[in-house]
């Protein structure tokens, strides 16, 4: 657009407006700086007291014991476990839904399905936590012996439904952006709708689909209320889905709602866990963007 590249105006009103807008927009940059700096400051305090090797390698997380240990692996394992269970639910269901939205639903129906997903996304996760703890867990306990009241399984299953709309929406967008001509060509060769969906559109949109899954995983890692309510707050190193576990997020909640004197190592540990969480989700988001850029099929 030629006109959008004209010389900057010298009219003071114009300049002032522009400056004001830049000032407002800079708040978003300051937020990022604030997150990084505030976390980093407290994290430095933490690593002045606890060696990095212990944080990364020790196998227990017991900040409140007389002899506290600060090994993050139980929290990582808990996060990984719940996220994995969530993805096992969300990937097949979400992708099937995405294929349906992109390839089968038409007009009204499509809009209605998207509206329903929006509605689903709008439900606060504390509600899902309540549901997982009080409804899903008792039901599962009838089927699975030895299931704790707080367990990774029930939290993970419900988490799968929480991230399902996310997988479905992003993957459907990727499939919808596959050009129509490719579909028509496949139909012209006599392919059935399911063959077009699975063997033409799906591979063509694969980069976007992978990105959708990575983004959903990142969402699951950061999910807090559902996990703190239904999975419990006991950091142990296990991959048994029947066990009570703690994730990084649920530890942060537990520590923040308890009495943590400012300046204690346990207080700084809060930020060390938060920073790890931040780095992990950032890594996932960058990875998703990289996958989209690197493996996108171009059709021009």
């Amino acid at each position, binding site marked *: 657009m030629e006109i959008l590249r004209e010389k900057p105006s010298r009219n003071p009103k114009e300049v002032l407006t522009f400056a004001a807008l830049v000032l407002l927009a800079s708040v978003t940059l300051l937020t990022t700086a604030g997150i990084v700096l505030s976390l980093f400051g407290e994290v430095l305090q933490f690593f002045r007291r606890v060696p990095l090797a212990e944080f990364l390698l020790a196998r227990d997380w017991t900040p409140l014991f007389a002899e506290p240990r600060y090994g993050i692996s139980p929290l990582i394992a808990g996060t990984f476990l719940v996220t994995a269970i969530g993805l096992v639910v969300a990937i097949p269901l979400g992708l099937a839904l995405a294929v349906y939205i992109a390839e089968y639903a038409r007009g009204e129906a499509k809009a209605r399905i998207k509206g329903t997903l929006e509605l689903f996304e709008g439900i606060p996760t504390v509600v899902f936590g309540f549901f997982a703890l009080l409804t899903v867990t008792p039901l599962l306990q009838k089927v699975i012996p030895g299931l704790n009241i707080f367990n990774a399984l029930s939290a993970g299953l419900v988490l799968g439904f929480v991230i399902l709309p996310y997988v479905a929406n992003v993957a459907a967008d990727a499939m919808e952006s596959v050009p129509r001509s490719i579909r028509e060509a496949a139909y012209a060769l006599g392919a059935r709708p399911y063959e077009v969906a699975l063997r033409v559109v799906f591979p063509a949109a694969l980069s976007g689909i992978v990105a959708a899954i990575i983004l959903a995983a990142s969402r699951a890692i*950061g999910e807090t209320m559902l996990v703190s309510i239904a999975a419990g707050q006991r950091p142990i190193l296990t991959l048994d889905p029947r066990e009570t576990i703690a994730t990084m997020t649920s530890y942060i909640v537990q520590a923040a709602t308890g009495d943590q004197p400012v300046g204690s190592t346990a207080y700084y540990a809060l930020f060390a866990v938060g920073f790890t969480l931040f780095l992990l989700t950032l890594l996932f988001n960058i990875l998703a963007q990289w996958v989209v850029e690197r493996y996108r099929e171009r059709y021009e």
Partner: protein
Amino acid sequence: MSSWQQTFGVDPWKDRVDRAFARALVLPLLLALALLAWLLGDTLYRSVSVQVLKADEGPGKTYAFGLSANEILRQELLARGYTEEEVQSALGDPRERRVLLMQNRVELMWNTHEGPFRYVVTGLRDERIADFSLLEGLRRWQELKANLKEGERLVLNPWLDQSFLTRVPSRSPLTAGIGTAIWGTVWVLGLALLIAIPVGIGTAILLEEYVREGRLNRILEVNLRNLAGVPSIVYGLLGLALFVRGMGLGPTILPAAMTLALLGIPVIVVTAREALRAVPESLRLAAFALGATRRQVAFRVVFPAALPGMVTGVILSAARLIGEAAPLLLVGAAAYVPFLPNSPLSEYTVIPVQIYLWVGMNLPEFARVAAAGILVMLLVLSVLYFLALYLRNRFRREW
């Protein structure tokens, strides 16, 4: 059969696969809808229960439908053995009356042992004898009614009622209410939007009307995309380190609102940009052709045209922020606040955090209180959602 017929075309088995595939794809949607219905039904069912209660003081009477709270309290106090003068002085003094209402909840029950739709006065120290789910309670209603002892009453309790909405939290599930949390949410959300709307819409206008490309655009876009991916609890840590501790604001409404605002800005930017992008380019070009400056185009032509879309976006963002509990847990919302907040530096709690705290309580009836709280929150959210939908359709313009 020739090879092309085998690959495509006339293969009845493939027809069957095709039909089965199309049907199977609907399953996840049905599953998700079923889960949603189950969740709602379950919450509704949990929010009603049949209870046998023993009044701490007085005979545990019920009162006819249609009486005022004042009249009910008067009769209750008389039934507890106070004299007419004592009752008059207690109800005449506004402070004593407030304390009385704090400790005794006047509720409308759907059914009682003395007939349907009657008021009861539930005291802070009333004792719960039994609590049944709706179906079991109704099945055993006659039996329970026959076995009532002196001072006990049998009620069908809808936990979500008018007095639930106005009461402050309580250690007893019988008298717990969500009033404080509602006001806390109003305060925190109101202040947060006051910060987030100008910043979010300003950023969107900058990105859509001023710098559509170039370095500034790239930096802002990449930053916004990453911010949108940051877990909300990390914003809570930011608020804790920077606003609560760093600025010394303490665990009060203002730092909570600032934290929530930062969380809401990327969401508002996205929705506002969509609204701005929906305004056709021809409108801008026409204005430029008439000699309008960039500021005039942005604020007098594009902004009014995009306003309905932006309002819709802000409402949807607000709905998202109402349900956020995680970041606020870190900036003080987990406190027990037995009064209504009255300034930006008041202590506070918000609806989702209050629900979280109730879910974590040991007494099983707190699950009923939590269910009532969830219903309140979902009700508020659906009102906002339909408002947004209405505005979107009412002001939709085809260019």
